């Protein structure tokens, strides 16, 4: 059974066993390697570090510091299956006991946050160290709207960023992830994301969430939301579909111990909200028939009421959003309509949630509290998802 201790105090450096820690600097530029290496050396003075860097970016070798070439892979803004395959291969080749994977723009991590993550990665009792970033109130919206609530409700884990770009993994966790990643690479799907939190929960691994502080999250090369959102959401839906036997059992997520991941700020977003609501109303007029194939009458009625609300008064109820996401998940599994069309039809609904979220923040509410309320609604509606999953034709309120 996987356990999670959020923000647990880490052991001091004196108690950590010396060993080899493999650090992968994925997508790091030459100028970024040296500060990262300096921070890591300071955080782990007793650890022998093996740094896997892109070819040609290695700096001067030091004692307890060794550079190896990281195999080239397709540049990506997330950790992909190919990255996990390379991580396992390098760890086995260099006899590392743990792996720290740092994604692109890792140099933006504060030294303290990097140190905490690095120490957690090298601790013997932790299989997966997941960072919790401190983001601005209008950042990481897809994670707040869909990824985190789904991961928390279905896999009973409160890791705030299930699609983190920095990870600490033990060797046994790396073997598990590497085996799953190898299957994807052999199917020529090496650039799909890996959902490590759900893998860890299914495998009964111990997960630790680490306060990593602020970080500049890498942005997709293709900035079009119409391409990226279906890609990420589709990957998550496929992962959930594959692990249906696990999450259909009732589980309780551990209590929340972390600090707020998102800074509270009052920002006027009326212009963006107006644009998003106009898009939502346009989508309601034109995509109503398609939504009707996926959503039950109750949800359609809720959307109809929302389409008449304007401006700052627009608020998407938590239960409605949870059921919409679950209904789309069901439709994804049942292939009610083409999956590309299905995920494309989700985009206006997601933007409606964003508009509601911006309105909530503009009204002075704590954004993190708002996200936690939504995530709790996902947990409350899990029974709805399980019922529709098991009896898709019979249970359709």
């Amino acid at each position, binding site marked *: 059974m996987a356990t999670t201790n959020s923000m647990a105090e880490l052991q001091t450096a004196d108690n950590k066993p010396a060993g080899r820690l493999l650090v992968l600097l994925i997508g790091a530029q030459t100028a970024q390697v040296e500060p990262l290496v300096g921070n890591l050396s300071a955080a782990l003075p007793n650890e022998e570090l093996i740094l896997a860097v892109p070819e040609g970016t290695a700096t001067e070798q030091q004692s307890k510091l060794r550079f190896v070439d990281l195999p080239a892979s397709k540049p990506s*803004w997330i950790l992909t299956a190919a990255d996990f395959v390379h991580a396992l291969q390098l760890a086995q080749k260099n006899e590392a006991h743990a792996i720290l994977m740092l994604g692109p723009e890792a140099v*933006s991590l504060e030294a303290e946050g990097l140190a905490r993550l690095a120490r957690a990665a090298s601790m013997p009792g932790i299989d997966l160290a997941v960072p919790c970033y*401190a983001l*601005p*109130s*209008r*950042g*990481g*919206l*897809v*994670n707040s709207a869909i990824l985190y609530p789904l991961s928390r409700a279905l896999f009973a884990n409160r890791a705030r960023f299930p699609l983190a770009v920095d990870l600490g993994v033990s060797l046994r966790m790396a073997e598990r992830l590497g085996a799953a990643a190898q*299957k994807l690479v052999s199917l020529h799907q090496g650039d799909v994301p890996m959902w490590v939190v759900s893998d860890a929960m299914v495998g009964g691994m111990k997960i630790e969430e680490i306060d990593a502080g*602020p970080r*500049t*999250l890498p*942005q*997709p090369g293709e*900035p079009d*939301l*119409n391409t*990226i*959102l279906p890609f*990420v959401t589709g990957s998550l839906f496929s992962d959930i*579909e*594959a*692990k*249906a*036997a696990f999450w259909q059992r009732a589980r309780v997520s551990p209590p929340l111990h972390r600090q707020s991941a998102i*800074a*509270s*700020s009052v*920002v*006027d*977003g009326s212009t*963006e909200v107006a*644009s998003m609501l*106009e*898009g939502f109303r*346009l*989508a309601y007029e*034109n*995509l109503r028939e*398609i939504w009707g194939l996926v959503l039950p009458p109750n949800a359609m009625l809720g959307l109809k009421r929302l389409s008449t609300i304007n401006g700052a008064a627009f608020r998407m109820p938590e239960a409605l959003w949870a059921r919409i996401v679950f209904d789309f998940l069901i439709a994804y*599994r*049942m*292939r009610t*309509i*083409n999956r*590309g*069309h299905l995920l*494309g*039809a989700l*985009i*206006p609904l997601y933007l409606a949630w*964003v508009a509601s979220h*911006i309105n909530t923040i503009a009204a002075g509410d704590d954004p993190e509290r708002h996200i936690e309320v939504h995530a709790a609604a996902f947990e409350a509606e899990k029974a709805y998802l399980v019922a529709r999953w098991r009896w*898709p034709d019979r249970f359709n309120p």
Partner: protein
Amino acid sequence: MFSVLATIIQAQTAESKQPVYTDNASILHHMSDALHQSLYRVLSLLIAVLPGLLAFFVALAVFTFVGMALSAILRHGLGWVKFDDRLTRYRGSGVDWTPTNSPTAIVARVSFWGCVLLGMVIGVSAFDASYATAASLPISLLPYLTHAVGAILLLIAGTLIARFLARSVLIGAVNAQLQYARFLSLGVKWLVLVLTAAMVLDHLEIGGAVVELAFGILFGGIVLTLSLAIGLGSRDLVSRSLESRVDRIDRNVEVPPPATGGPGETLRHF
């Protein structure tokens, strides 16, 4: 002498009158004969073809029942050996098959429709054979039926493609916040449907050059109409849509946000 001449004239008159009476009867007789013969030919042909027609329906019915039996046997057999579970384990994934699309259901369905198709082919072949032996002209029905089947398949494929493209365009246009999304979607759908109809008629060799010409005029007209409507009629709308799209792209260009919230914060979905 005069009496002899009169007798000769009367005989000639009688002779000249008799052939008129004989041609009328002959025409009627010939017409009646022609009608009888054509009726006989058609009925003979029909009688000769009826067994073939009956053979078609019998073959179709028999193979349909065979298909149903085979489908049921396969469904029970594969369920007994837990075919779905074995396949899932072999594939190494935990994909949960939906009840209507499990491998067992697919195999059973394919076997049923395969038997029905085989029955249709055998029935058509039997019908064709009986028609060929009965008819004086060596006309084979099978090629025309295959053309018809091909035309039906073309029509189905074209309709499916039209619906798929229409929905793709609709969703894409709505997400791009184009006000004329539905108009664009309908235009694409009808373009594909017109193209499909022209291909079907051409495949059936109906209309010939008339169909080709009509299709060219219609297709070109639709494209020209769309171009004019979008280019001229919606000029301002398109430029506003494009400007708003460029503005959105500029806003989404990577601008590192401050660590804590503040005014002028960029909206970042990831």
